């Protein structure tokens, strides 16, 4: 039991720079692989609806705009999204996935309807792979 055992450390900190990041005036760097908000690459999407099925927060909504032209509309409800990136994992397109997470984290707003994003696109044709091991790129039935 020693007296004032904490004191040398405390006094040493008087001369160090504070550990606080002065947040709104200085920004923080997020690492690569940070899970921000999801967004779509509409030219690659094959509208298989795997992301819509697997989303735990029901934040992805894919509706068919026109059956003839194979046009679809995807709405991502960023106010419901929990940023889990399961949509990115479930997306079967390769080599580049149609769903991707960006690095934005300052997504606050005053109205939850401002946080919804929409894309209207024509479904891309799935690549025909010769004898695939698992037919992951085939068009799934909705």
């Amino acid at each position: 039991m020693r007296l004032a055992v904490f004191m040398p450390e405390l006094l040493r900190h008087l001369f160090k720079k504070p550990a606080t990041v002065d947040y709104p005036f200085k920004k923080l760097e997020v690492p690569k692989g940070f899970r921000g908000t999801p967004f779509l690459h509409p030219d690659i999407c094959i509208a298989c609806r795997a992301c819509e099925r697997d989303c735990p927060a029901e934040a992805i909504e894919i509706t068919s705009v026109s059956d003839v032209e194979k046009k679809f509309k995807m709405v991502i409800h960023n106010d419901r999204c929990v940023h889990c990136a399961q949509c990115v994992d479930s997306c079967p397109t390769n080599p580049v996935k149609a769903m991707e997470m960006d690095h934005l984290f300052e997504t606050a707003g005053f109205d939850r309807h401002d946080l919804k994003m929409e894309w209207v696109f024509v479904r891309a044709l799935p690549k025909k792979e010769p004898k695939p091991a698992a037919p992951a790129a085939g068009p799934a039935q909705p």
Partner: protein
Amino acid sequence: MAVLKPILYLVVYPGLLFLFVYSTFCEWFDRKVYARLQNRMGPTHTGRWGLLQPVADFFKLMSKEDVVPDKADKTLFTLLPIVGLAIVTTAGLLLPLWSVSETGFAQVSFSGDIIVLLYLLSLPTLIFFLAGWSSTNAFSEIGGTRVLTMLFGYEVPLFMAVLSPAILANSWRMAEIAQFYRAKPLLILPNLLGFVIALICVQAKLERTPFDIPHAETEIVGGTFTEYSGKKLAFFRLMTDIELVVSSGLIAVVFLGGFPGGVGLGLVFFIIKTLFVIFLLSLIRAMTSRIRVDQVVSFSWKYLAPLAVLQLLIVILIKGLLL
């Protein structure tokens, strides 16, 4: 015209306005030192370097809604912050800030004013107890009883520690004590033990860690101040700040040799010496954790009071040997 000078003295310097400005500066200093010791920033963005933060807090509290509990005694509940503020500002008037010359002392200096100052500084404890009692809230009652229990612990060592330099200097008048130690600076050294004891007891009087038991935030919500809000709480916080300035001023006068040199130089010495004492108090605050109220009483009577008696013995011995 003759009546203007005392009014200026009471309201501007060293009265209300000076105490308000300086105590908010001391609270800023305390918060900044505490934060830097903990590797954080402290107030930064209100005013340059965050200097206006305590003033902003005061004005914010003044503008909030004032809720008085139904069953509380309304007169007592409302009067207590005002009376408390009056007591500590009166105590502030007694500090010898304005020694005009070596022989002419402060405006309100008289023999025995150190006793009056110590008495006036004990009254806030009673005010806190009454504040807790009149709130009729279980948490405030516990806070009130804790304040009085702590009073049994630290008051006796504080009196003994502060009065030993007075005994050595052969005077009960603060300005004279300060002048004695300025003339013979080596005699400050035997009082070092009393200095340490007085620091610890003042920390207990001001209810700061390790003794912030009466308003322990994590245990009894707000302690004595649970039911206070708005203007009354603003006055209580201002009262604690001014109590901080007055207590550190008392320690600076009695142990560190006072504030010589008239109006201007006296103010500079006041600021330097009180900031030094407040720095030490903030260091104690950052270094320790809160202790229980029964541990306060046992610690005071087992360690502080015997050491204070030892300090008195040392002073009496030196007085007999040297003077």
